[in-house]
C-alpha cells in the first residue's frame, strides 16, 4: 500500500480495524476520521449542555464550541461570515430548507430550474413545492455521458426563472457541473443558484464566493464527519429575506399569543436543539481536511479513477456510465454489466471484501435518461489505493463466474 494512503487509512478507525476491507462506497457515506469521532466524544463527555440557553459554565463551553464549529464550516466554504452557515441534519434537510423558505417567496408561474442529473433530494423537494405553490419546474437535460447539456440554458431561464438548483457533481456518473456557465446565465436572467455540494465536499474545501452561487448544501457524513449533520450556506442578504422553515425554540425573537417575530439568521433556520456534538465533530473533520495537500490527493484520486476506468473498459458486456475522461469527473464510476443485476454484483463483491453500492442511487430520472434501471457504483476517496481497484477488477471476474 502507498505510504501516504496507509498513513491516511490509519486515521480512520473503521479502516484501521478492517485492513482487508475495500471500501468503495464513500459517495454514499465516507468513513469518519478519528479527529471527528474524538471531538464528538470529547464534547459529549466534557461539555455536553444545550446551546444558546444556559448561563452556567458548562453551557458557555458548549456555546463556544458550537460557535467555533460554525466558524470552521465558514472557513471550509470561504463564506463571508459564520452567520451565513446554517446547521441542518444533512444535505437533504438543507435543500428542503431552501425549497420551503426561499420557495415560499416564489409565486405561481415562477420557474425553478433543476437538472435531470439531480439526486432525489434536489428533485423531490421542488416537485413538492410545485404542488404547494404552482411554480413551474423545468429540467436541464443531460448528454449521453450524463454531463449537463447547457446548450439551451439561456432559453430555459427565459421564463421568470427565479432559481437554478443543480448538483455540483453527479452522485452516479461523477460528472462535474459547469457551475461558472450556470452562474453566468443565472445572473443574466436574474435567477439565484443553489448548488448541491454533497458529492464535492469529500474532494476538498470549497469556495462559495469564487463559485458565485447563492446557496450551497452539503452533508457531514460525506466529508469524514459524523452523520446527522449538514450545512446550508446562503448569502446573508438572502437568508435575511427568507421566512423560517420550521418553528420552535431558538428561532424566535419574541412569542406572544398574537404574534411571533423571528431571530436573525442563522438561528432563524435552526429551530429546536441543533445537532451540537455532530456540528463539533463535523468541524473537526473540516479542520483536518483544511490541513491536507489537496492537489496531491486530487492527482491520486484521478489516477485511481483512470485505473478503474481502464480496467472496466476491458470487461466484456460492461457499459461505463459517465464521462470517458477521468479528469471530467470526480472519482465516482458507475457501470452496467449486461445480464447481471447490480444487487447480485454487489453481493458477490461483498463476499470478496468489497463494499460497493448497486441500485438506482436515488437518481431515477438520471438513470432513465441513461437507459438503465440500476447500476453498480464504485466511489473513490482519499483513503483508497490501487489495491482497492485491483480487488474490484478481480472481484468482477468472480462475479461473472458465480452469477452465470
Amino acid at each position, binding site marked *: 500500500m502507498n505510504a501516504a494512503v496507509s498513513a491516511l487509512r490509519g486515521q480512520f478507525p473503521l479502516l484501521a480495524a478492517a485492513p482487508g476491507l475495500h471500501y468503495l462506497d464513500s459517495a454514499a457515506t465516507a468513513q469518519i476520521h478519528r479527529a471527528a469521532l474524538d471531538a464528538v466524544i470529547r464534547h459529549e463527555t466534557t461539555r455536553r449542555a444545550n446551546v444558546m440557553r444556559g448561563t452556567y459554565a458548562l453551557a458557555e463551553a458548549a456555546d463556544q464550541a458550537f460557535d467555533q464549529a460554525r466558524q470552521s464550516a465558514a472557513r471550509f466554504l470561504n463564506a463571508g461570515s459564520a452567520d451565513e452557515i446554517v446547521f441542518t441534519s444533512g444535505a437533504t434537510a438543507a435543500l428542503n430548507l431552501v425549497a420551503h423558505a426561499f420557495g415560499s417567496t416564489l409565486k405561481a408561474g415562477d420557474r425553478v430550474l433543476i437538472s435531470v442529473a439531480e439526486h432525489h433530494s434536489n428533485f*423531490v423537494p421542488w*416537485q*413538492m413545492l*410545485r*404542488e404547494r405553490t404552482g411554480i413551474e419546474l423545468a429540467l436541464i437535460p443531460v448528454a449521453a455521458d450524463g454531463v449537463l447539456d447547457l446548450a439551451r440554458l439561456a432559453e430555459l431561464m427565459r421564463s421568470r426563472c427565479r432559481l437554478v438548483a443543480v448538483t455540483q457533481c453527479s452522485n452516479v456518473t461523477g460528472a462535474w457541473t459547469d457551475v461558472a456557465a450556470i452562474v453566468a446565465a443565472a445572473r443574466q436572467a436574474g435567477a439565484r443558484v443553489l448548488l448541491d455540494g454533497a458529492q464535492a465536499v469529500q474532494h476538498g474545501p470549497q469556495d462559495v464566493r469564487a463559485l458565485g452561487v447563492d446557496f450551497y448544501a452539503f452533508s457531514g457524513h460525506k466529508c469524514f464527519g459524523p452523520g446527522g449533520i449538514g450545512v446550508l450556506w446562503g448569502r446573508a442578504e438572502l437568508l435575511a429575506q427568507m421566512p423560517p422553515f420550521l418553528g420552535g425554540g431558538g428561532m424566535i425573537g419574541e412569542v406572544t399569543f398574537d404574534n411571533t417575530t423571528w431571530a436573525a439568521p442563522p438561528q432563524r433556520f435552526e429551530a429546536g436543539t441543533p445537532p451540537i456534538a455532530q456540528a463539533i465533530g463535523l468541524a473537526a473533520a473540516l479542520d483536518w481536511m483544511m490541513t491536507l495537500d489537496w492537489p496531491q490527493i486530487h492527482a491520486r484520486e484521478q489516477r485511481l479513477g483512470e485505473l478503474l476506468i481502464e480496467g472496466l473498459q476491458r470487461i466484456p458486456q460492461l457499459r461505463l456510465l459517465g464521462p470517458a475522461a477521468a479528469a471530467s469527473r470526480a472519482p465516482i464510476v458507475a457501470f452496467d454489466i449486461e445480464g447481471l*443485476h*447490480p*444487487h*447480485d454484483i454487489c*453481493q*458477490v463483491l*461483498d*463476499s470478496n*471484501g468489497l463494499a460497493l453500492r*448497486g*441500485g*438506482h442511487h436515488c437518481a*431515477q*430520472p438520471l*438513470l*432513465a435518461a441513461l437507459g438503465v*434501471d*440500476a447500476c453498480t457504483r464504485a466511489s473513490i476517496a482519499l483513503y483508497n489505493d490501487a489495491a482497492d481497484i485491483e480487488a474490484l477488477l478481480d472481484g468482477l471476474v468472480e462475479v461473472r463466474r*458465480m*452469477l*452465470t
Partner: protein
Amino acid sequence: MNDASALYQDAIKQMAQAAHGHGQLESADGEARLDNPLCGDRVRIQVALDSGRISAIAHQTKGCLLCRAAASLLGARAVGHNAAAIEAVADGLDAMLKGAAPGPAAWPELAMFVPARAYASRHRCVLLPFRALQAALGKVGAGATANATENHGEIKGAR
C-alpha cells in the same frame, strides 16, 4: 462479509433463468405492480381466476436473481391456489427468511432461498413477487391495476 456462493446456487440461477410465467395475460381478473423503492426492482403480475383459484398467472419482472427466481417459482407453482393459500405461503416464506420457521412444507422449492436468511437487505427481493401476487389477488373484481411501492408511498407528479 459472507460467502455468496451458498446464495447463488444453481437452483436459484436455473429458476431465474427459466422465467416461468414471464409475459402477459390476454385477459386478467386482477393485476398489480409492486416496486422496491430502495433499488428500483419492479414486479408486474397478472392473474386469472376460476372459482376463486388461480387459473393463469403472468409476470414481468425487472430485478435481481433472487427476485426473478421468486417470480419464476410463482409462475411455476401458483396455479390452482387461492388467495388464502398464497398468503399462507408468502407469510411462511417471510418467517423462513427471518429464521423463525423451516418454510412452507407444501412448497419445498422455497428452501432454495434459505441462504438469503443471512442477508436481511435481500429478503424484500425474494418477497416482492409474492407481495405483488397478493396485491393482484386483492384487486380481483376491483377493475383497476394496483400501482404501489412497498411502503405504498406515492407523490403526485413524481416520476
